[in-house]
């Protein structure tokens, strides 16, 4: 029987914009997979994995000295870095309506902490200043944005109720700040948790934090010590709210700067040379800027850089990002039921929570490093590590969200409940979280080049090894622009799908 509805084309199954966008992203990822190098290159990954697992079950907490130093340094760098970021963030938030301030913050946060560390290493060497600034600068950019958005939400009624002639500063301290305080405090605590992860990773470029000791333990095959280091790190993060008391913050901040470790002398002539010479493109260095030949040489240099390095770097970065994003999506959908009261009992959820806490507390960079030891350099370790870490973060948020869904008394159970009731209800939220993580995944993907995967970071690292800092700066600029591009694309897709636009807790 053909109905009127059929003839008119309505009444046929249709797919929502959210489903079409998801399908498109999966298709892109499958396409990218064709170009991705996902080979396992180590000879015997399984026996190495056995040794690692043996290390995990026999953690060696007797390496007290190394563990203690790693813990203290990691916390100190995070404390000082995040405190500076919060201080400058709240100041910058006051000027966030000014275009250039907003752009500077966007660029500051589009460049990964490790890249900032690599830049400052050139200027200050292995001085504590390098580590502190590497955290403080990108974090200040993020804090400024979030604080500004929070402060903007002060109810207009409260401001209007003030008598005429109240100064902006009084209004700020009496109305806007108190109103936003709880949220700012929570967000800053969350930022500090992220700061601990960033601080740990800074060890991989030589600063005396967790990553340094971890790398040493791994290179010696001392997996028991590595396991103990990581377990200590989880304990610190899990107990954060117990020891990070408002009353103690002042004391911590007073002590932390003195614990940042061996201060090497900063050589200011290095800093000056970096800014005035090293980062100037080679063809223009010491050249007459009115000489057209210098500029044509610069043009050649630019084309060479963009064609031979930036372009392949961008392609690899995008390929890896798209695959990791979709892998994250699938793992998220697998992970969130683990902690949801709708699917598991108390014991099951306990195990689920432990797994997700470990996965989201371990910095992606460290996860990639571990998988690289197992499988050798290819995109596979990066995909698995990024998907596990980000899937655990979003899975945790969605799991909590799913608990709030109220079902009919006669709703389905098990997999039918999952597929027909829970996932469809949360799908918009799920996509919103994913699109927020998209830019973060890309930023992380770029830095993974440092570990030998051919993304933009790889070319930056090579240029650093050759001490060609002009190239480094150009490639960093390309990286930042790529990130800003993804950020704006993500924002456009979110707006197009009408996904909610304010989520702080999944934003790094």
């Amino acid at each position, binding site marked *: 029987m053909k*109905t009127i509805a059929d003839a008119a084309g309505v009444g046929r199954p249709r797919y*929502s914009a959210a489903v079409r966008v998801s399908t498109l992203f999966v298709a892109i990822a499958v396409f990218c997979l064709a170009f991705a190098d996902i080979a396992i290159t180590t000879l015997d990954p399984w026996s190495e994995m056995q040794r690692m697992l043996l290390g995990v079950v026999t953690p060696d907490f007797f390496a007290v000295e190394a563990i203690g130093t790693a813990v203290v340094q990691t916390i100190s760098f995070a404390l000082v870095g995040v405190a500076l970021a919060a201080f400058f963030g709240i100041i910058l938030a006051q000027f966030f309506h000014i275009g250039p301030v907003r752009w500077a913050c966007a660029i500051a946060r589009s460049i990964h902490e490790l890249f900032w560390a690599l830049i400052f290493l050139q200027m200050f060497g292995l001085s504590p200043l390098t580590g502190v600034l590497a955290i403080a600068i990108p974090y200040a950019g993020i804090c400024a944005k979030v604080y500004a958005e929070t402060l903007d939400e002060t109810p207009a009624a409260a401001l209007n109720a003030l008598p005429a002639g109240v100064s902006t500063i009084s209004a700020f301290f009496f109305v806007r700040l108190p109103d936003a305080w709880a949220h700012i405090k929570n967000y800053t605590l969350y930022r500090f948790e992220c700061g601990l992860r960033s601080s740990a990773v800074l060890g991989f470029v030589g600063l005396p934090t967790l990553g340094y000791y971890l790398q040493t333990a791994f290179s010696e095959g001392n997996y028991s010590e590595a396991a103990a280091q990581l377990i200590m790190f989880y304990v610190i993060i899990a107990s954060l709210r117990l020891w990070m008391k408002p009353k103690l913050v002042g004391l911590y901040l007073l002590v932390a700067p003195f614990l940042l470790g061996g201060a090497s002398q900063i050589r200011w002539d290095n800093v000056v040379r970096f800014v005035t010479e090293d980062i100037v493109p080679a063809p223009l260095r010491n050249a007459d800027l009115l000489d057209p030949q210098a500029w044509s040489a610069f043009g050649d240099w630019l084309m060479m850089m963009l064609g031979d390095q930036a372009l392949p770097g961008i392609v690899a970065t995008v390929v890896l990002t798209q695959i990791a994003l979709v892998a994250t999506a699938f793992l998220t959908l697998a992970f969130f039921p683990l902690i949801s009261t709708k699917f598991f009992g108390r014991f099951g959820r306990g195990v689920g929570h432990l797994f997700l806490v470990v996965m989201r507390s371990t910095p992606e960079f460290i996860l990639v490093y571990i998988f690289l030891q197992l499988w050798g350099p290819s995109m596979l370790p990066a995909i698995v590590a990024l998907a596990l870490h980000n899937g655990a973060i979003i899975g945790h948020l969605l799991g909590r969200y799913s608990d709030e869904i109220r079902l009919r*008394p006669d709703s389905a159970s098990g997999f039918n409940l999952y597929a027909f009731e829970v996932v469809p209800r949360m799908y918009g939220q799920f996509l919103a979280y994913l699109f927020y993580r998209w830019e973060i995944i890309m930023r992380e993907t770029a830095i993974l080049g440092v570990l030998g995967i051919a993304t933009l970071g790889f070319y930056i690292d090579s240029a650093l090894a050759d001490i060609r800092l002009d190239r480094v700066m150009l490639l960093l600029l390309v990286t930042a622009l790529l990130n800003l591009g993804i950020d704006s694309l993500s924002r456009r897709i979110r707006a197009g799908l009408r996904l909610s636009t304010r989520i702080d807790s999944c934003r790094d």
Partner: protein
Amino acid sequence: MLLQLVNQDFGYDRGLVLRDISISIHAGDRIALVGESGAGKSTLLTAIQARLLEQAALVPQNPGLVGTLSVFHNIYMGRLNRHSTWYNLLNLAWPQRREIDAIRPLVERIGLGEKLFERAGELSGGQQQRVGVCRAIHQGGDLVLGDEPVSAVDSHQARTVLDVLHEHFETVVLAMHDVDLALSYATRIVGLQNGGIALDSPSAGLTAADLDFLYKRGDEDHR
């Protein structure tokens, strides 16, 4: 006999809503629960639901649709337990001809034919309520329990909805606030007042005026 309650109390944590309730439900009964809002209709219905969940199709007052899924999918959900998970997933991604053909006539009958593949969240409250009714009908069985199933539907549509419900189910228990509708569809009226059953009688011979007393304000201490 489907259910028999003898001198039972019901309520939520904060205290009793219904006291000393005795009622029996037989196959073929068409019962309307009437009474002021707050008289305990929903509480009684919930108590009946809890005892007959396995065999009853439910029409909750809030239809509990999944707004992001289509009308088709929300109705299909009534039979999730009858198909394999794989077949359910197949229909989720790609609605099957067979299932569409089974659901379409029902949706057309109830006046939502053109909305079959609209997202349920985009429908009006009354339309959503009708989708909830369709889901219960699609689920099938002999018994339907409904809490104000036509509260958001206009009076013309309400009659269609009630017609369809009564055609598809042998036993019908509906909480209703419209006394005229209750009298014209139910064969038995159960009136609730002040947390107790004040009336339980065949509807034949009853008029709206006979039910008026249920809507007089109860004792002050019960308010």
